[in-house]
């Protein structure tokens, strides 16, 4: 069974390192692709920047909201407005739990909203659960036809 990949959209290298470490402790590091801003994420998903393109869609996108160039909500909006990616599971993983962000995230079709805990132990726990859930437990939507 090929559980697919995780697309981690995160601009903060510390957060990237910590997330990778958390996933690594559960042997999920090989399945992670990192995009450092919204443009990279969209390029990866739509195949314009040397990424795998829609054929190799990830199993889940872990999306930060505050991103340089194109912010997280805009990335989410683009994912949902494209036929190829509109069913793609997207989890918002961000520092903020501002009500506005939560509402906007769900309104644009996020599948889940997780706030990054400051406590690294809790953070590791959250990353592990997210990885396990979206890679193993969740039934991914069928790959859309060209």
């Amino acid at each position: 069974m090929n559980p697919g990949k995780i697309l981690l959209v995160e601009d903060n290298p510390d957060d990237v390192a910590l997330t990778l470490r958390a996933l690594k402790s559960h042997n999920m590091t090989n399945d992670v692709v990192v995009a450092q801003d919204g443009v990279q994420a969209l390029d990866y998903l739509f195949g314009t920047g040397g990424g795998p393109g829609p054929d190799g869609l990830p199993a889940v996108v872990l999306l930060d909201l505050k991103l340089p160039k194109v912010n997280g909500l805009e990335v989410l909006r683009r994912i949902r407005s494209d036929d190829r990616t509109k069913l793609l599971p997207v989890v918002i993983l961000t520092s903020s739990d501002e009500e506005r962000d939560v509402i906007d995230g769900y309104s644009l079709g996020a599948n889940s909203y997780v706030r990054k805990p400051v406590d690294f132990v809790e953070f590791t726990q959250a990353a592990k659960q997210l990885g396990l859930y979206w890679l193993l437990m969740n039934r991914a939507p069928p790959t859309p036809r060209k």
Partner: protein
Amino acid sequence: MSPLRDWPIKRKLTAMLLLISGLVLLLTSAAFVTYEVVTNRQTIRIHLATRSRILAANSTAALAFANEADATELLDALKYDPHMVAAALYTQDGRVLATYPVAATANLIPAAPQADGYRFEGGRLVGFTPVAQGGNQRLGTLYIASDTKDVSDALRLSGIIAVVVLAIAMLAAYTLAAALQGWISQPILALADTARAISTKHDYSVRAPKRGEDELGMLTDAFNQMLGRIEEQDRELRRYATDLEQRVEKRTHELQDRNETLRRNAAELLAANQELDAFAYSVSHDLRAPLRSIDGFSQVLLEDYAGQLDEAGQDSLRRVRAASQRMATLIDDLLKLARVTRAEIRTEMVDLSGMARDIAAELQKTDSARQVKVVIAPGLTARADLPLLRVALENLLRNSWKYTAKQPQPRIEFGSVEANGGRAFMVKDNGAGFDMKYVDKLFGVFQRLHSAAEFEGTGVGLATVRRIITRHGGQIWAEGAVDQGATFYFTL
């Protein structure tokens, strides 16, 4: 035709003059006619009496001898007077001796003589005259009837004269009245015109023309004086109105200025709020990220390099982690406070008792080891913003929960009391309490009356509660003593 009282004054005056002169003339004419008739009747009566006596004197012989032919001849002389209608001579025993005309019908001559004298009877003047000889020996009676044509002629003539005079006089009276009524009606009409002009044009500067020093002149004067006063008052009124208008305008300007200031303030407030919003948003996102790095990499050090760190080094890292987590809590609490400040208030009926029960149940669930007696008065409700009030009540109850931790028989009570003539809600505990000396520091941000070692906390909770209560237009205050518990009161 309109009723009499609605007639214009000109017509009334004319009618009055005509009525009076007509009545006077009518009475005069009547008197004249009556005089004519009475005079004429008297004249013909005297005339008949005279003629009768002469004829009676001449008839003595014919009666004394009952000579019918003489008597008839005597009476026949009456034909020279066309007014004579009939005549008769009666003998002493009342028998008709002779008549005039000779073939007089019975209805012209009474069958027997009547009382002596002259009287008008059935449109005729009749007279019975005694025929006597020598003064006392009565021989018979003479009857003469005369028509009253003279009287009726006089009546007709005087009537015609009266009518003609009346007609001419009325015509003259009408002409004169029409001309003279102006004396009285003109000033009144002028007054009326002036009054009408004033009432339609509201021009109080016009004056009624004065035509004389009579009562109407006085009336005109009084009217004009009144107009003068009205004009003056009107002018004054206008001045006041203008003054008032100016004042209103000035006030309006002031109000507009004030409105403008308010609007500017509101705009500034809105801008400040928006800045606060942006600030809070930024804090929410950006301030936590470095904390996560501090905590995360400290943990990494603890996990990966534990062997290279002695106990003091590991302890330092654990302190770094604890501090970063505390800071995260602080940031979260501050964000909550900011949120409370920004949130829009939407009131509804809130079941406070139910809310308190829910919160107590949650506290018990997260801290199941503790045995706290929680007493909640039933049926407490208030109009409030539900989510905000929940934050406030949760803060208060959580405080009580926290500060009763060292109390062997912890007790928390939620209820209501009468305070300042209204109802205040109350959260009371028998926990650590506080010194009333520091009561005014209780609700300040980051103000704590206990050390973090004693009781953990950020010092933002009560500030948040006060902000919520204040935003509801309510008040909050507290009473307490060290180790005697604390009571928080609030109104909504």
